[in-house]
């Protein structure tokens, strides 16, 4: 694998380079530069992360990022749709999981899964400000340790959780009934 010849050094005191288009890419608070690879055309060579590491990255991503990640490639789609990821997305803002984790998992998976639970029965009920994905990202150092990773999303209490789980059940049984033609709950 070819490596670019010069790069930004870790301590931040190294040379900074511009990429072929003389673009400096910057994000909130930090600057990162695409390495110049004069002997190559096209994008600089980037080591392939491997599925385990990509999955680990996605574990740390929010729901909106997972939705976009599913559109990246077939492999990413498979990883981004992993039920384990979506279980974490659903439950991370619950004050308390209403029953044992294993029990919750088997029930929700039987009724259509966590990803479905989120997109149909959690997302629509989030407060409008919470539905917007976090604008820009703060460096971890700026977040107080106690609040962990929560963003705009308020913590869901027992009632909200029960509501979304109930709706998931109803949606499932509605689909089961072939005579039921009304699909008000958006299932399908």
């Amino acid at each position: 694998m070819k490596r670019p010849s010069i790069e930004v050094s870790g301590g931040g005191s190294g040379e900074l380079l511009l990429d072929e288009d003389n673009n400096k890419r910057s994000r909130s608070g930090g600057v990162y530069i695409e390495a110049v690879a004069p002997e190559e055309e096209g994008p600089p060579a980037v080591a392939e992360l491997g599925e385990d590491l990509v999955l680990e990255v996605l574990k740390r991503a929010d729901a909106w990022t997972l939705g976009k990640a599913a559109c990246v490639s077939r492999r990413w789609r498979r990883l981004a749709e992993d039920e384990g990821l979506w279980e974490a997305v659903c439950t991370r803002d619950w004050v308390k999981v209403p029953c044992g984790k294993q029990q919750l998992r088997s029930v929700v998976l039987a009724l259509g899964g966590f990803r479905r639970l989120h997109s149909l029965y959690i997302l629509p009920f989030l407060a409008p400000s919470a539905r917007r994905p976090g604008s820009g990202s703060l460096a971890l150092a700026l977040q107080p340790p106690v609040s962990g990773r929560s963003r705009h999303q308020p913590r869901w209490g027992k009632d909200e959780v029960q509501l979304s789980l109930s709706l998931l059940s109803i949606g499932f049984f509605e689909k089961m009934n072939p005579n039921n033609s009304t699909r008000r709950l958006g299932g399908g």
Partner: protein
Amino acid sequence: MAKMIKLVSGDGAEFEVEEEVAFQSKIIKDIVADADDVIPLPTVSSKVLIQVIEYCRKHAAVNSFPLSPSSSAAAAASSSSSISYSKPVSDPALRAWDNEFVKLNNSSLFDIVIAANYLDIEELVDLVLETVADRIKGKQAQEIRRQFNIENDFTPEEEEALRRENSWAFQNN
């Protein structure tokens, strides 16, 4: 005199580091337990190994001092909150150092996380993965592809269907 361990990178460069620095890597700790002080790392280049050693040196110095009561309370509080995959680094100065450390392009970061994963240096793996996750947040699929150098292998119809299915994710304000 601290015990020294010799690490040999894939391209043949040798690095002598203190034992406690090298032991930030669980793999190395296990190997050395079998009485082997020279550790070849054929899959790790010297450039990446230098950076990894820099991280380990910094964190070995910090880990050798017991947590102060306030920082251990903060660590305990955050680990009891919502599902968390990381142990937050409780020392603000160290966190600031970490944030500086990861101001690298994706190519370097990926190399580092692959090496840290191989060497089982949990905190470094976590730090880089958090950074990468942060970088893709809010990005469109095309941008993510570019960052990871991934080819779009969907047919136009598949891509259209996926976009519709995930349209909620694309509503940025």
